[in-house]
């Protein structure tokens, strides 16, 4: 009986490993991410030129594709507009799985700030800047709660603000690239 249990466990572990390796390899050079696994460079889509858009249109968009560099990779991510600026979050930053899953956010925080966001098929060249100002976080937390946490209740907003203050969630502004490049 024990042998059979171990054999079944072995098959499950084998299939899990095969899944991770297969999907990671399959997606790593793709034009954009899959549901969970990072993709490669965002290649297709018109490149936005000119004035800053009115980011409020992102209120109707649940996820965008975000590419970062060094290493070049892309993932699906939430997006929040607040005060005319646009932000992306990265959660689970203090958990073991989060540290494996959200390596891009650590890379950005370490200085690899350039990014490309693809929203509705249009690519925007941006620079990611980690936000720590509580006043700015408050507006972002409200929008995050409104869009992704079932509503802008005081509890939900406070919970998000605490998560950011504790370092469990990091918020990045997708700012225009400095130097206009």
């Amino acid at each position, binding site marked *: 009986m024990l042998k059979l249990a171990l054999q079944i466990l072995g098959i499950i572990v084998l299939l899990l490993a095969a899944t991770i390796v*297969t999907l990671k390899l399959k997606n790593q050079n793709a034009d954009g991410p899959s*549901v969970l696994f990072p993709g490669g460079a965002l290649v297709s889509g018109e490149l936005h030129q000119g004035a800053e858009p009115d980011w409020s249109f992102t209120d109707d968009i649940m996820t965008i594709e975000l590419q970062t560099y060094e290493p070049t990779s892309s993932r699906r991510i939430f997006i929040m507009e607040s005060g005319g600026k646009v932000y992306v979050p990265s959660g689970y930053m203090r958990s073991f799985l989060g540290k494996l899953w959200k390596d891009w956010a650590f890379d950005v925080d370490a200085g690899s700030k350039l990014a490309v966001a693809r929203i509705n098929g249009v690519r925007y060249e941006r620079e990611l800047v980690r936000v720590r100002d509580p006043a700015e976080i408050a507006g972002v937390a409200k929008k995050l709660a409104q869009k992704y946490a079932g509503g802008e209740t005081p509890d939900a907003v406070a919970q998000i603000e605490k998560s950011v203050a504790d370092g469990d969630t990091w918020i990045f502004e997708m700012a225009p690239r400095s130097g206009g490049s």
Partner: protein
Amino acid sequence: MKTATYLKLCGGLTVAWVLALMFVAPFAEFIEQLMLLFLSTNAR
């Protein structure tokens, strides 16, 4: 189950699983959704 049979089963299942992930997009998406659910539930 004898070891030789077990190894053949593992090999066959892995090949079939990998091919399905590579070429059956809805299957790959379903598996990814399950993994995302697991991560978002447990990565705390």
